[in-house]
């Protein structure tokens, strides 16, 4: 495989996850914004999910890369 798709996918989700997670943290105290999402900070949780998914993808991609170069 010339381009391992896991790397860009992992990187993108890590980036978007961090963005939403940090945005979720900074808006945690805002009572207005999460009223529609049933008082649940969905930015925080979705961000967390994406960070985990992105990190896993990167991990698998990097491991495959290392075993190829060996």
């Amino acid at each position, binding site marked *: 495989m010339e*381009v391992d798709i896991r790397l860009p996918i992992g990187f993108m989700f890590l980036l*978007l996850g961090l963005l939403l997670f940090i945005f979720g943290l900074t808006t945690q105290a805002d009572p207005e914004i*999460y009223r529609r*999402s049933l008082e649940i900070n*969905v930015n925080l949780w979705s961000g967390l999910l994406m960070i985990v998914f992105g990190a896993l993808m990167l991990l698998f991609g990097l491991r495959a890369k290392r075993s190829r170069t060996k």
Partner: protein
Amino acid sequence: MESFALGWVDYTVMLVYFAFVLGIGYALKRYMKSSADFLTGGKSIPAWITGLAFISTNLGALEVMGMAASGAKYGMITTHFYWIGAIPAMIFLGLFMMPFYYGSKARSVPEYLKLRFDEKTRGFNAVSFAVMTIFASGISMYALAMLMETLLGWNFTFSIFISALIVLIYTYLGGLKSAIYNEVLQFFLIVIGFLPLVFLGLINIGGWEGLTSKLAEVATSHGYAAGAYTETWRPVANAADNPMGIEWFGLIMGLGFVLSFGYWCTNFLVVQRAMAAGSMSAARKTPLIGALPKMFIPFLVILPGMIAMALTSDPNSGFSLPIKGNTYDYDKVIPMMLGYYFPTGVLGLGLTALMASFMSGMAGNVTAFNTVWTYDIYQSYISPNKSDKHYLWMGQMATVFGVLVSIGAAYMAKLFNNVMDFLQLVFAFINAPLFATFLLGMFWKRTTGHGAFYGLLSGTAAAAVHHGLTQPAGATSLIKGGWLGTVVHTYPSEMAQNFWTAIFAFFSCLVITIIISLLTKQTKTREELTGLVYSLTPRIRDESKHWYQRPQFLAVIVGVIAVILSIIFW
């Protein structure tokens, strides 16, 4: 409907997504050296990637919004479009048909028809397929631009050009491989973007129990049994017991057999993904790997529709689907739900997921179009015997040309809605009999080119005649049927009519192909048919090391899970 106010986070999510999609296309650009690299992906892609691309290209914006709409309108029986309407066909494609597609060295589905039958059968299929893909991508582009106009207040032309331009750039740069790689990224984005919607909706409605009890009220108020919206097989015992107006026989034969096998096993849009796999084993596993997530997509796209219906039925919920004419505007389910539950941040993510689904569908159409155009039309009829460099160039030009014509089709859809409905109807007639031709071609060596061609024509004619003589209940326009003057039969719903149109088309193609094949001489020699027909092809041995890596084992797992799901939601 009020439009959304997007914040800087939402736009950042969108821009990051755009950057990655374009970046993948750019990274693949230097590997595009031959027409095969560009149009067939160089046959080098692992099975898990082609498998996810296989279902992602089908998961376009129209599919996402349409399935949510059906979820609201018909409830849980919409899952039949997945569990009976896709899984058996995907298993059949992987186990029985892929060996001939992949092993035949054909580069496209029309080319297989040329090798197996003759030039006219290929020409008919290639031209109708090319026109169809262009219009399909035009219609979905139109739908997306309309949505962006109502939701975000974006200018229609701006939406069309920005979405078409991004798809054009990444498919022009990296060809089929870029489309497939991006489809994988888009698939994950669609799942992660819509997941919070399902969770919030279920929490709000009181879980599956809450949803069942709310929808039971809706069902009984319409005169159905309490479970009509939340069960899958019990309501289809009788056409009068379910809102879709369909009974089990029409469902299994029409949707489960003719329509679903016709789509999943012969449509080059999806088959092309499997043909791009790196080995025979990977090609056969492509639809089977795709089937695993495919079975769970209903929970992502149909559940939001059902939740929307339950919320609408509850006057205290504060949520109601907009009214259109004398019924609800079901197509607005997804945008309405996004706006109802998502705060700024995930709202951008949800909208980006919607755009990703649009792009995966459009890129699928564009890459299938440029291959069929270049190999099956240009190289075959217009300019044969040129250098491969010339065909690479033509493939790239076809990409640009395909996107431009789709843009034209999108504007045509905006101006003349009827023309588009009419075209979709014609394509439905052309597609309906196709599976009979492939079934006979692959498994009966006596089938001849004349038999296949006239069988296809008769199947298309049978579909048109059936549609012209029947009507769904309450039809007001001739586009819905009955245009031959007399109405012989009235179906309880449009869905039921569609299923039966397909059944008639299939069997008429089957019978006519057999009769004409028996009356005409086989023009292909045994050698020519080797690798194309079951009885003349040596049985392939799967190269997998372990039994649990073989396609057969995967097929059993997929089948068992589909049966378990059907029993749980019986």
